[in-house]
């Protein structure tokens, strides 16, 4: 499986070749003295054809969005348009982050335009593109809120309220920011319990983090009142952008009273998930919070244009929290998001949400599992009832589809959190529903044995975690 080549590193005479890439020689004798180098390096040495086969084979053991439906609730696994890869691969996109502003006007312009697009879509006044993922965006929001309160002499606020059905990152991001997390229960309709909120809010409240529609796919109808309540105690309202795909062109966080939000471009704006990133989590804020955003941001230069083209520059917001990434975030991902938005425009974006909502409702109607609550927007949470939701998911693999997110939110027992997105056709939805409906009647043993038609069978997580083997080296040590 691994044919390791051990390269010994010696200390040569120090002239070390002429540095040409093409002289056809390999230097393993180092111009550095021995005490500054390692002794050897031992790794596989394979030819290009062998590598091509290795990774091609690995790719064949992965289910991607081009393999079939991928209805992971809250993940918005929508089709990733191929052309966005092409624009991100343009040679002109490959620039070093320390280039002078004058020489990367193209990059700055694209960033400026994307800031602007996102601001319009979210109803926000200022946007930073720096956070490299959704959770990083949350953390920026938390840090911005903290800096804002501090600036206003309210640094004592030490609580962030998070609904119990929220993404785990909300809790973790607030905690990373140093806040105590106050968990907020849902009401019987699956929405924010206003009485509980009232009870949770206080002068200690730094912020309430919400997503809307919430993780049940329900719109928080009382959002205006919620915003007022939070603002009344001096808190800020944070919008988790994970579910923004439900609202494009129909409602904007800024209009609902949110002060700060992040966008998941790898969800709403169709940049690929890449097996777990890179994503990007730009953050938008209302004017009051803009001075606290991370530095640098991009703006058009006030002192006019060059050759009739506007000139862009980086600037540091007055009370910036500083940086949350070594450079400018996941630039190549941002290009793809910009291209997606520019391609769809108002009508395309609005249609994306419309189709996503229609698809979720249609699928909810078609499946035989119980689907509590409603009406739904982009997703719904079915209950596996007496079945184990994780087993249901494994069994769905046998029917050739990707299963929904399971066991979360816990408000629904044995949750099957399902978000088909707008890209699925009616035929595919019917096929997906058929998979749900095939499993609904199956017995526990069948489910526990699933999957049986996949390359790997059910993997024992417990034993894998009990004896962690996290590298080839660890496996070799065993044998």
């Amino acid at each position, binding site marked *: 499986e691994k044919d390791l080549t051990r390269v010994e590193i010696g200390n040569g005479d120090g002239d070390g070749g002429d540095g040409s890439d093409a002289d056809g020689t390999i230097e393993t004798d180092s111009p550095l003295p021995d005490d500054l180098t390692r002794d050897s390096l031992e790794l596989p040495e394979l030819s290009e054809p062998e590598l091509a086969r290795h990774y091609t084979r690995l790719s064949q*053991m992965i*289910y*991607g969005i081009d393999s079939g439906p991928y209805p992971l609730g809250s993940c918005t696994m929508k089709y990733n348009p191929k052309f966005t890869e092409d624009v991100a691969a343009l040679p002109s996109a490959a620039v070093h982050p320390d280039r002078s502003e004058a020489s990367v006007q193209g990059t700055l312009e694209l960033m400026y335009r994307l800031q602007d697009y996102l601001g319009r879509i979210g109803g926000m006044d200022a946007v930073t593109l720096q956070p490299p993922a959704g959770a*990083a965006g949350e953390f920026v929001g938390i840090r911005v809120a903290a800096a804002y309160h501090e600036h206003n002499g309210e640094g004592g606020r030490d609580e962030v309220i998070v609904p119990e059905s929220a993404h785990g990152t909300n809790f973790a991001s607030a905690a990373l920011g140093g806040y105590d997390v106050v968990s907020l229960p849902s009401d019987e309709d699956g929405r924010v319990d206003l009485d509980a909120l009232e009870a949770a809010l206080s002068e200690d409240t730094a912020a309430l983090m919400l997503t809307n529609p919430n993780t049940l796919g329900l719109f928080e109808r009382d959002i205006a009142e919620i915003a007022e309540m939070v603002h009344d105690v001096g808190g800020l309202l944070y919008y988790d952008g994970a579910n923004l795909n439900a609202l494009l062109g129909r*409602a904007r966080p800024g209009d609902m009273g949110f002060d700060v939000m992040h966008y998941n471009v790898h969800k709403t704006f169709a940049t*690929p998930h890449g097996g777990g990133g890179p994503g990007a989590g730009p953050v938008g804020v209302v004017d009051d919070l803009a001075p606290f955003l991370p530095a640098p941001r991009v703006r058009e230069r006030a002192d006019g244009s060059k050759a009739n083209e506007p000139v862009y520059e980086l600037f540091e917001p007055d009370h910036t929290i*500083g940086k*949350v990434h070594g450079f400018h975030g996941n630039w190549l991902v941002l290009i793809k998001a910009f291209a997606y938005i520019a391609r769809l425009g108002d009508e395309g974006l609005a249609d994306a949400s419309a189709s996503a909502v229609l698809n979720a409702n249609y699928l909810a109607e078609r499946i035989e599992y119980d689907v509590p609550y409603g009406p739904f927007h982009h997703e719904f949470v079915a209950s596996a009832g007496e079945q184990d939701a994780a087993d249901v998911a494994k069994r769905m693999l046998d029917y050739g589809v990707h299963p929904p997110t399971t066991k979360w939110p816990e408000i629904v027992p044995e949750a099957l959190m399902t978000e088909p997105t707008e890209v699925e056709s009616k035929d595919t939805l019917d096929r997906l529903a058929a998979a749900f409906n095939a499993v609904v009647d199956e017995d526990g043993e069948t489910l526990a044995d699933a999957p049986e038609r*996949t390359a790997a069978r059910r993997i024992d997580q417990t034993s894998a975690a009990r004896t962690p083997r996290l590298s080839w080296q660890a496996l070799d040590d065993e044998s």
Partner: protein
Amino acid sequence: MHGSHATGSPYAPHTEEDRSTMLEAVDADTVEDLFDIPDAVRFDGEFDIDPRTERETRRLVRSILGRNDEVTELLGRGHYGYYVPSLVDHLADRSEFLTSYTQYQPEISQGFLQALFEYQSLLVELTGLEVANCSIYDAATALGEAATLADRVRATTGHRVLVPEPTLLREERRSTLENYVAGTDLAVETFPVADGTVDLAGLEETIDEDVVMVYAENPTVRGAVEEHLAEIGSLAEEHDALFTLGSDPIALSLLQRPADVGADVVIGDASVLGLPTSYGMGLGLFATREDYLRQVPGRLVGVGEDATDRRAFTLTLQTREQHIRRERATSNICTNQAWVALRTAIHAAALGPSGMVDLANRGVTRAATLADRVDEIVGVQAPVHDRHHFREFVARVDQPAAAIAADLERLGFAVHVVGEHEIQICVAGVPDERLDRFVEAVEEVVR
């Protein structure tokens, strides 16, 4: 492109007929009826974003990015433009890799899990540490995570995190670190540096029992090879502080192995392999000792068995993570840089160990050669530091550095300005004939 849906999303497939059937099934007259949004917060404005065809969009982006000047970048300082073999693009762009989700269903994700497992194994060999996660965002955030890990694993009540003075630590890394520790009791403080590397005596004076972590880089951000790593490691150990070392896979192919110098954590940017220059987009490398396994941030791929007892890969130790542990997770990280890690693994495999060592050695030789050549130019002294250099070095220029850099840019070369009379020059990824022309350009601008 898609005929009958030209006015909606080009990626939403419904025909009018489908839409009607589906609306009927959900008992709605129009799609708008499905939106349960109170009028008060309804948005009935427009974004004023025009839709475009795919071709127009491509031309738009090309036209915008076309405003970037074509310049030979002799830039480094943590982000490098090594040549990425075509193989990397072609394999990583296979849609199964590119479009899949995090591997929460390992039975249909074995290929990606194995690739990440191999990435972890690469880092284990490079660092000599037992545990590497399968990515953090970048070096700066990895540094932040290292500090919070130090905070968690340190038994005592220490609160100081020691980092090099600003000349040897990028402001961006320092600032990101400050944000990561803002919610803790940790305070970031500096220790002195000398001639482009750590001032060991100064560090010894600064360190005490209140220190939870010492951070140093090899090579340093000014391109110098650190000569006292083992001593730094010992100092940290003596004071019960973690030693976190910043580096990258190419440097680690040649320079001292972190485990051999007492490093407890290695962070850095691994996308030095796998990505071209990408305006700072990175891949946070994070490796540590097995002792701290359960405090590691981010995802880990492990080996287990499936129901037929065959070896299988899976995400493991997930109870550390936010989706299970919530506010008590080891990090808030969820989406990371998995696909970049894949690219890094492929690039490393394409080089092989001899190719990696060779690439590293060339970085030393070529930097030294270039320093000698510019040093011969009147008005330039290089390298500034009496150190071995890796891939880049600082040069002193008699004239103001900013003016020199601006003049060089007009001639098509980008260098760093790192002091009033200091520029920094990096050879990584720059072909030899460009270096020749660069030397001519320096001669011209200092004249």
